[in-house]
């Protein structure tokens, strides 16, 4: 019988020290922000954690602070807090939209920003207890199985898709992630926080064993920047993105001077479409340009047997996302 213990942390530093101590004792710690998913995973046995580091007792890293240089978002801010924050809504509308699209109100009221970005994949093999890469095995069962919801970009050896809605937005805004560990803090650009399975087949990010995502710094977007998060789900609420498009465009009149287009739900990490971004830069947004961007977005796609439908969806989502931004 697995003995499960709970540690109520009182600070970020205390939380990572507790995690390091648990590691040193040969146990497996897990940080619990809202715990909405983690605790169920522990119950289901799909997460092997046996020390829950409870972060709900931590007072810091909950605030969202807007300054001249940007917005600082505590890793323990709830998604409700994030979507309701006036500065976020005004300056980073895509981020508010993404937060608002997550789960249900009940989930958003306790789920945290850090937890949303470090949640484990929702692949049905992993979640049903298959001994796959994500649970320490050496096979991705989706490859020859039911892969309708799996990756069309960046797959191999695991073909999970990254489930976070806010992660691609933060990659698009080129946020900086502050990580706290037992040896101190470090900063990592959002895009470098997430790692492909070919780099690490088990984990989805660079966090060390006792390290946590403490804070996110989003630099102030340049003048004339617009952003949106376009999400397609299998029902209106309480499910993950079949595809999400985070689009951040800096404009001069109707001409794009700079663009970021990052996808969720189609790759093991937030998937940046650099070719599309380069294509858009310097162009006026027209129906034809948006359409070409959409077509271009799937040029590197490598679908599996049952997820080909994600190709036309991706094209359409990118095209619509750009057109809606241009219209707005």
């Amino acid at each position, binding site marked *: 019988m697995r003995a499960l213990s709970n540690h109520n942390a009182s600070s970020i530093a205390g939380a990572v020290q507790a995690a390091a101590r648990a590691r040193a004792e040969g146990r497996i710690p897990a940080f619990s922000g809202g715990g909405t998913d983690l605790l169920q995973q522990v119950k289901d046995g799909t997460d092997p954690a046996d020390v829950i580091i409870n972060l709900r007792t931590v007072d810091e890293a909950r605030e969202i602070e807007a300054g001249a240089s940007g917005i600082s978002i505590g890793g323990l801010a709830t998604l409700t807090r994030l979507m309701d924050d006036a500065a976020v809504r005004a300056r980073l509308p895509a981020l508010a939209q993404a937060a608002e699209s997550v789960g249900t109100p009940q989930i958003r009221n306790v789920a945290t920003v850090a937890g949303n970005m470090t949640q484990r994949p929702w692949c*049905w093999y992993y979640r*049903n207890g298959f001994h796959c890469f994500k649970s320490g095995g050496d096979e991705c069962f989706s490859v020859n*199985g039911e892969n309708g919801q799996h990756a069309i970009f960046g797959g191999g050896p695991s073909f999970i898709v990254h489930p976070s809605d806010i992660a691609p937005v933060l990659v698009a805004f080129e946020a900086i992630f502050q990580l706290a560990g037992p040896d101190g803090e470090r900063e990592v650009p959002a895009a470098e926080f997430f790692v492909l399975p070919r780099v690490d087949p088990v984990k989805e990010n660079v966090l060390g064993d006792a390290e946590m995502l403490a804070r996110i710094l989003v630099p102030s977007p340049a003048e004339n920047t617009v952003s949106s998060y376009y999400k397609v789900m299998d029902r209106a*609420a309480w499910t993950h993105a079949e595809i999400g498009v985070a689009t951040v465009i800096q404009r001069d009149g109707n001409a794009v001077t700079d663009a970021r287009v990052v996808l969720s739900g189609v790759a093991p990490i937030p998937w940046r479409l650099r070719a599309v971004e380069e294509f858009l830069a310097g162009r006026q947004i027209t129906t034809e340009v948006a359409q070409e961007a959409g077509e271009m977005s799937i040029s590197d796609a490598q679908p599996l047997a049952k997820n080909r439908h994600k190709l036309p969806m991706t094209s359409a989502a990118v095209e619509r996302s750009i057109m809606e931004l241009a219209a707005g």
Partner: protein
Amino acid sequence: MTQPTRIGLEPLETIGHDTARIDAVERVTGAAQYTRDFKLPGMVYARVLRSPHPHARILSIDVSAALALPGVLDVITNDTSPIVWGSGCVSGGRQYNDPIKDATIHRRHIFNNPVRCVGDSVAAVAATDRNIAEAALELIEVEYEELPFVLEPEAALAEDAPRIWPEGNMCPDSRNEFEPMTSRIGDVEAGFAEADRIFEQRYETGFVHNAQMEPRCALATWEGDKLTLYTPSQGISNCRHDTARDLGLQDHQVRIVAQYMGGGFGNKNQNQDADLIAAELSRRIGRPVMLEYTRRDDWLGVHGRWPTVQEYRVGVKNDGAVTAMQMRGYSGMGPYRKNSGGISGMDYYACPNRLREIYPVYTNRTTSGNFRAPSDPHGVYGVESIMDDIAYEMGIDPVDFALRNMRRPTEEAQFTNYSLEEVITTGAEQFDWQARRRVQPGSDEGPLKRGAGFSFMMFRAGLGTSSAVVRVDSQGRYTLYVGVTDIGPGAKTTMGMIAAEALGVPLEQVEVVWGDTDRTPYSVGESGSRTTIMTGYAVVQAAENLKRQIADRGMPSGGDVLIGTATPVPSTDGLIRQCFAAHFVEVEVDMRMGTTRVLKYTAVHESGRIINPTTARDQIRGAAIQGIGQALHEDLLYDPRNGQPLSPGYYRGRHLTHQDIPDIDVTFIETDDGYGPFGAKTAGESGIILAPAAVANAVANATGTRMRSLPITRDKLLREVSA
């Protein structure tokens, strides 16, 4: 929510008025006791160990480590408790038939060896608390010899398919013979010879779980040789009888208590293995035992609607007359036959030449069984898909095609009343069918395409026997005793309203005693849309009996009471009694995303006289919502290589959320055919039957592409439209 439109009858004194449930306050304040709310002195908790394999022989089970865990009181397996669960597998799926249960060759036990699906029960633990019981499950060592498995019904019938039962994978009929369910009318070959055109198509429908909020649970306690079971059963009388049979007891030795429950939708008919497991553990350890299923237990260890394959062949004359209908169907029953595996819908047509052959087949998926109108929604989807295609192919409005070909009363087969034409024409008008349907399917410009579909049905509203007792005291207080329970429709309130009407007193003057076999007489059970008609009719007759006594003897005085009883055996005098409905749906399909949105939904029902319009409307709406889920979302995916279920539960099932649900306009055409309680017919199941067909037809009308497989998910839709 808008109130239903009502056409036909004026309300009576109590019946026909929107009435809040008489137990609404208990429900919303939490005073209502659901099974898991009961706590008895000394009560302990039980959990079930389930098979991780789709098909395996158990070579050994070592429970010693589990038994050694402090707090564990007992571990039972097939070795300790070889109890046959009679309604868990019945030849012919004849679930309410004792002699056939006795003769059934494929006996299901509460713990089986071999195990025949992922989720088949292997052992159960009782412990002083839930955590210990769960921990003990992990300490049970089971040695399995994995066996080959088969998931799909057609593959299961192949010569070389793995055998799930010794005789093979065809389910035996009620005579233990391995024949398809065959229904033959006229001469189908002659009918095809007469046809100008012949259409053929194949359809598939997925497994859908009942998905009621409350998973199965049971609390068992014994006093001497009498068992009391608190259990969410859709039929306390059946549950008592089944449980007594399975445990070798007399009916009076079993008491079933079931009042409030978190939905059933057919998932809770009769008794369940949970009842027997809790009873067996309680008997062995001498303490009350509460067994609670998890959501996953419920999804994989109980049952849902059977997946089907349906192959149709239909012959039509150039004038639109259908001359022949043929269907060969396969129903995947899982490893145990709990129900028939029926596929209905062809019977709504008058076509004189019909042949239907259905093969109910064992597979190593989870068990199939009752689900609100068990044989109907998937069958109507198949029939109405091909009929809709034929109508458009021949340039006929599908509504006209239905009116032309549907079943109508004949000299030989007359109805108590017949409203099929009226529900269709009323629905077409209310929905504005002509404006919403695309004469040329798929003709909308652009990626967002709209279209409309419809379907129609008739469904049994037969009479039958239940009992009721009504008592009056000297204060003029009436107490009604009925063996009903409430799976959602509000049976307690309905029965009270019928009694009040029949007695001629206000509803407030009637107290309803319900949901307890020791306190109430036989009731047919909340299945087959029977409670309102059958138990309701017994209530009317008991009230009449009491009124006659009052007329003869006057009201009781002092401590005296008068008691009226009735166990009527009503008949329809050789007439067919049906309820009727037509549903019209408008959808918008995003051709680039494969997303289908229901924009408008119109449901017109003739269910006789409506007792309580509020709850009747909600029955239709709730059922339509389930049907939309079956049409567009729900399935239980299995990995073909290892036989593991991948999508159990609400998250994976993509059940509709409140944000997905369209406005559903309900109209009742009310009639009183002179049968049943004040002319009431059925409403509980009928609402689900038409949604999958109407939605699928609307998708076909919008897209110009026929989706031949339910659910119509975006991957299938995008595959079809890009092909």
